[in-house]
C-alpha cells in the first residue's frame, strides 16, 4: 500500500479515534454510573428487606405457636412456665412514650418558637449548640443521670422505689427534646416571611401572628416532629431500662414500675433460649411493625402537606 494513501487514512482514523474515544468513554460512563447510584439506593431497600426477613423469621414461629391474639393480649409473661403475653409491655411502651410526649413536646415546641421568633441572636446560637450537644449525648449517660439524680428525687417526692412510668417518661422527654425541637424549628423556619408580614400588617401582635398563622402553616412539619419523637421514644432502650423497674405487671398508675418492649428484648436476650428467645424476637417484631406504622403515618402527613402547598 503506498504511503501517500495510507498516511492520510491513518491520520483520518486517528482523528476519528481522537474525536470518538472520549465521547464513547463518557457515554458508557454516563450509562454505567447511574446504575451504580441506583444499585446503592437499592442496597438500602435490600437492607430493610433482609432485616425484616431475619427478625421475622426468628420470631414468627413463636407467634404461630402462641397465637397472635394471645401473644398481644396476654397479661402474663413467664418464660419459665412458657407463658408469653406482652400486653403489659405494650401498655408500658405506650404509657411511657405518651407521657414522655406530653412532657417533652410542649417544651420542645416552646423552645422552637423561642429560637425562631423571640431569641436574640447570641442566645439562639448558644441554645442551638446546646441542643446539638444534647442530641449527641449517648443514651447511657441519660440513663445514668436518671438513676443517680431522678430516681432518688422521685423517691423523696412520691415514696416507693422511684422506678416508674414517670421516671422513664422524664428521661425520654429530655432525650426526644432535641429531635422534636430541631425538626419543628425547621418547619417553623420554612414558613414564608410573607405570611408573617401579612399578619403583622393587619395589626396582629407577634404572638398572635405565631399562633394564628405561623404554627398553623407549619403544622404538618410540627406533627412530623412529634411522630419522629414518638418513634425515638418507643425505640429507646438503654436509658429506659435503668429507670422504669422492668416489672411485667400491668401498670395502674404513672408511679407504677413498667417494662417496655425494647427493655423486654434487651434484658432477657442475654440468657434466653428456644421459645423464650423467639418470644423476644417476636417482641422485636411487634416493636418493628409499630414503628413502621408510625413512619407510614409520618409519610402520609408529609405527603398531605406537600399537596396542600
Amino acid at each position: 500500500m503506498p504511503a501517500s494513501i495510507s498516511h492520510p487514512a491513518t491520520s483520518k482514523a486517528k482523528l476519528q479515534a481522537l474525536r470518538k474515544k472520549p465521547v464513547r468513554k463518557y457515554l458508557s460512563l454516563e450509562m454505567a454510573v447511574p446504575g451504580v447510584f441506583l444499585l446503592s439506593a437499592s442496597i438500602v431497600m435490600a437492607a430493610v428487606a433482609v432485616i425484616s426477613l431475619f427478625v421475622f423469621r426468628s420470631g414468627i414461629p413463636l407467634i404461630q405457636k402462641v397465637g397472635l391474639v394471645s401473644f398481644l393480649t396476654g397479661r402474663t409473661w413467664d418464660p419459665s412456665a412458657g407463658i408469653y403475653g406482652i400486653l403489659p409491655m405494650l401498655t408500658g411502651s405506650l404509657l411511657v412514650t405518651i407521657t414522655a410526649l406530653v412532657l417533652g413536646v410542649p417544651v420542645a415546641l416552646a423552645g422552637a418558637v423561642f429560637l425562631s421568633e423571640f431569641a436574640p441572636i447570641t442566645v439562639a446560637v448558644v441554645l442551638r449548640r446546646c441542643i446539638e450537644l444534647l442530641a449527641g449525648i449517648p443514651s447511657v449517660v441519660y440513663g445514668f443521670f436518671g438513676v443517680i439524680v431522678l430516681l432518688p428525687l422521685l423517691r423523696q417526692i412520691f415514696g416507693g422505689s422511684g422506678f416508674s412510668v414517670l421516671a422513664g417518661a422524664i428521661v425520654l422527654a429530655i432525650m426526644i427534646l432535641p429531635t422534636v425541637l430541631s425538626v419543628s424549628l425547621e418547619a417553623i423556619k420554612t414558613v414564608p416571611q410573607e405570611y408573617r408580614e401579612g399578619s403583622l400588617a393587619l395589626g396582629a401582635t407577634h404572638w398572635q401572628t405565631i399562633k394564628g398563622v405561623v404554627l398553623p402553616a407549619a403544622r404538618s412539619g410540627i406533627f412530623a416532629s412529634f411522630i419522629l419523637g414518638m418513634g425515638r421514644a418507643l425505640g429507646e432502650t438503654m436509658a429506659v431500662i435503668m429507670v422504669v423497674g422492668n416489672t411485667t405487671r400491668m401498670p395502674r398508675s404513672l408511679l407504677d414500675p413498667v417494662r417496655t418492649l425494647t427493655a423486654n428484648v434487651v434484658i432477657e436476650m442475654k440468657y434466653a433460649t428456644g421459645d423464650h428467645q423467639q418470644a423476644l424476637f417476636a417482641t422485636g417484631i411487634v416493636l418493628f411493625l409499630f414503628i413502621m406504622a408510625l413512619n407510614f403515618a409520618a409519610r402520609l402527613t408529609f405527603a398531605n402537606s406537600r399537596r396542600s402547598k
Partner: protein
Amino acid sequence: MLFPRKFQSLAVVSTLCVLLVAGCSRNPSPAEQGSITIVGSTSVQPVSEVLAEKFMQLHPGVRINVQGGGSTAGITSVQSGAAEIGASSRELKSSEKNLHETVIALDGIAVVVHPRNPVSSISLGDIRRIYAGQVTNWSELGGPDAQITAVTREAGSGTRGAFEEIVMGADKIADSVIVQDSTGAVRTTVSQDPNAIGYISLASVNQEVKPLAFEGVMPSPQTVRAGTYRVSRPFIYVTKEPPTGLVKAYIDFVLGPDGQRIVEAEGLIPVRSHE
C-alpha cells in the same frame, strides 16, 4: 435452635463468601494460631478477664478475647463455632447437655439490703414471702414501717435461676418485683434505696450494700465451700468437645493452682484445692 437445619449448609457457602469479602481467613484450628474467644455470662466475665490476662502474660503468643453477651449467647456461640469457650453462670438446659462443661468456680449468692436497714438476718420463709409478694412492709420483719422494694434479676439469668431453685422452690417471683438486668444494677438500686432488698453475686458485695445472714449463716467463701450457706451456683466453661490444644491448656491453667488462686482472689469459691 435459632436456625433451621437447611440454613446450616447455606451457612457454609456464606462463610466462604465472607472469607472472600473479609479477605482474611479464620484458621480452622484456632489453638495453633494462639487465639481463644470466650463468650458468655457477664457474671463470669470479670474473673475470665483476670484469668485471661494472667494466661496471656505466661504465654505471650496467645490472644484471648473475653466477651459478655450472656450465658445463652455463650452457649449458642460455642454451638455455632463462633467461640471456643462459652461462659455460663447457669446450669445447662437439657437441650444443651450435648456440650462439654467444666465447672471452674462456685459463686455464692448474697441477699443484700441498704446499709442503714436494721434487719441483719432473714429466714428462707421470709425471703420467699417477700419475693412472692406476700410480705410488702419491713415492719413485718421487725424493720421500720416502710414498703419493701424487692429487686430481682431477669428471667433466664443464672443468678435468678439459682435463687429460684434454692429459695423460691415452688413459689413464683411476683410480677410486681422490680427487675434489673445486671449485678451492678441490682447493687446500685439497693445501695440507693433504703427500703430495697436484692440478691447478687457474693463476689460483687461491697460496702455500699449489706449482706444478710440467711437462715443464720453469713455468706462467705468459707460458708459456701462448707455447704452451710446454701445459695450458690456454678460458673461453667462450655466447649463443643472435650477441650484440646490451647483451649485445654487454658482450662487446665484455670483449674490449676494459679487459676484457682485468682478465682479465690476474685471473691469466688475455688472448685479445686490449690494449697
